[in-house]
């Protein structure tokens, strides 16, 4: 059979199997097994466990459980609340200070955790009730946190970037740096929209200043010091030549664990186990998807589907930006349904040669891809962050949260357009700190 036709059949089968409600990783293994048996014979089943083991046998992946442990231990403490409180007291003089401090806290928290739902939950628990008390519209209160939470996968450390680095054999340290300025750009856009929308809804009084005395402002500072110390420690380990990005994750995890136990007095065995259990749950889930997606892409390339698609796209005579628009459309649709790591691992081997062939920078593309995944996190039907918010503020209907987060999706699309016009926003910082990429 022509590999392209076969590719279409695989695509439809994958969609049908994944939509049946089977776990994503098991679904990928089922599809891979069916097609390997049908086209390579039953003996190919023997190879699957070895391929799966081989996909996991990668030192870079080690950072995933560790960054998850880092985020989970910080999320199980009051650190998020302290950070939020400090920014709030210092920024109240600024119009719209509350929503600015919420988004700022999301961005800073994202710098400690590679996970979007964790960021959303940690800041939202404090931020959403506070914003509603101060008359911010429900849509802004929930939408800003849902969107701010997605920064978790763009601002380093980011699990998504690690997976991209592993799948495309690009430098993880460079990928992390590439996410910094686009992350700040997104924060800026989110802030601008939040303030404009609050002002326009007539809740302008919510934006007015509320004052805290200097004593109140200063007494909160020591509580964010440990947080900043951990960030400084991690950055030093990463860019001071102490450790590779994967090893840095271990330093970060150890520092956060110590922070939780020593500073925040989390000595209760039950609380420690809950945190460890959540870490294991997320880490196993993500690594199993990575391993299964590895088997899936082995199947695609062993049946020449990957190669055929890349060749076929190569023969299409389209403008590179038209091509990029199609790639974005594909990523957004895939991101609506599948978790980011699954999309990256399935799409990267097919997309990478196309992206490089069209003259795009792989680090710039990592940022574009990640923003696309962020859109999926706050869009129906499976937008994870929307459900986290729904759990925090159950009395706000999901419809209001959806309406509230839609403009933030528009901000992300705008960010993709800005980054397409000025690609150096993503590539400037890594080039400055690490020298130009060798590729």
């Amino acid at each position, binding site marked *: 059979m022509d590999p392209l036709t076969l590719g279409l059949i695989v695509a439809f089968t994958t969609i049908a199997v994944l939509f049946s409600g089977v776990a994503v990783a098991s679904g990928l293994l089922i599809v891979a097994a069916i097609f390997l048996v049908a086209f390579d014979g039953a003996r190919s089943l023997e190879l699957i*466990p070895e391929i799966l083991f081989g996909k996991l046998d990668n030192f870079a992946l080690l950072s995933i459980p560790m960054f998850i442990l880092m985020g989970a231990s910080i999320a199980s403490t009051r650190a998020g609340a302290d950070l939020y409180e400090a920014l709030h007291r210092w920024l109240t003089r600024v119009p719209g200070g509350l929503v600015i401090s919420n988004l700022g806290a999301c961005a800073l928290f994202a710098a400690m955790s590679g996970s979007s739902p964790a960021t959303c939950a940690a800041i939202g628990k404090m931020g959403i009730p506070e914003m509603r008390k101060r008359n911010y519209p429900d849509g802004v209160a929930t939408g800003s946190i849902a969107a701010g939470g997605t920064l978790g996968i763009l601002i380093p450390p980011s699990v998504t970037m690690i997976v991209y680095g592993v799948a495309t054999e690009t430098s993880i340290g460079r990928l992390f740096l590439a996410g910094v300025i686009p992350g700040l750009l997104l924060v800026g856009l989110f802030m601008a929209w939040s303030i404009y929308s609050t002002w326009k809804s007539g809740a302008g009084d919510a934006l007015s200043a509320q004052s805290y005395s200097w004593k109140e402002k200063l007494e909160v500072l020591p509580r964010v010091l440990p947080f900043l110390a951990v960030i400084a420690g991690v950055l030093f380990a990463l860019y001071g030549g102490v450790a590779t990005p994967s090893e840095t994750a271990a330093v970060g995890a150890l520092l956060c664990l110590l922070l939780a136990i020593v500073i925040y007095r989390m000595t209760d065995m039950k609380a420690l186990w809950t945190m460890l259990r959540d870490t294991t749950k997320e880490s196993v889930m993500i690594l199993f998807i990575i391993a299964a997606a590895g088997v899936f892409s082995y199947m695609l390339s062993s049946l020449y589907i990957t190669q055929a698609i890349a060749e076929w796209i190569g023969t299409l005579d389209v403008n590179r930006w038209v091509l990029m628009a199609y790639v974005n459309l594909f990523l957004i649709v895939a991101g609506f349904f599948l978790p980011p790591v699954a999309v990256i691992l399935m799409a990267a081997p097919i997309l990478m040669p196309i992206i490089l062939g069209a003259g795009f920078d792989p680090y710039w593309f990592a940022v574009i891809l990640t923003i696309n995944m962020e859109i999926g996190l706050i869009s129906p039907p499976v937008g994870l962050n929307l459900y986290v918010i729904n759990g925090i503020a159950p009395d706000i209907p999901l419809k209001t949260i959806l309406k509230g987060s839609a403009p933030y999706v528009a901000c992300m699309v705008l960010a993709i357009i800005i980054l397409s016009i000025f690609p150096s926003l993503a590539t400037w910082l890594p080039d400055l700190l690490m020298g130009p990429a060798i590729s």
Partner: protein
Amino acid sequence: MNQAIRAVNLLSRVTGVIAALMIVAAVAITCQMIFLRYFLNASTVWQTEIVVYLMIASTLLGLPYVQQLKGHVNVDLVPLMLPPVPRKLLLILSLLAGAIVLGIMAFYGGEITYLAFSKNWTSDTVTAVPLWIPYISMPIGFGLFTLQLLVDMHRLIKTPAVEINIEIGGH
């Protein structure tokens, strides 16, 4: 039957705890390695390989426990839209299909572990780890995961269709 189900649930929890401790061990060993290398200028030999094996084993041994916690993400859009009876059938089918494929993986994972053991395969590094040790997490992890999927399927079959909480599926 009930005893078998209880045994599977218990074993899944035990391997889950082992998986969690392996993550902690990997963190500790990695930090020890960085400390030795950066502060004492010592060379490190075995750590890199061992921590990767710990991570792999933690993932494979953690599979049944995460299934028990309903922690494997799925797309539940279609099951949610279906009427109760077809939904129940679809969820049973998806658990069964998962169990079949993972059962096959447990079998071949066991075969490669046996091969590695009987032929004394070792990793091609200085440490020369006997490969059956990391490999054995495949038959154990996949095997117990298969049993846990069957236990969940059994519970699903016994639950009346209208009472099925969507979480029981592959979630």
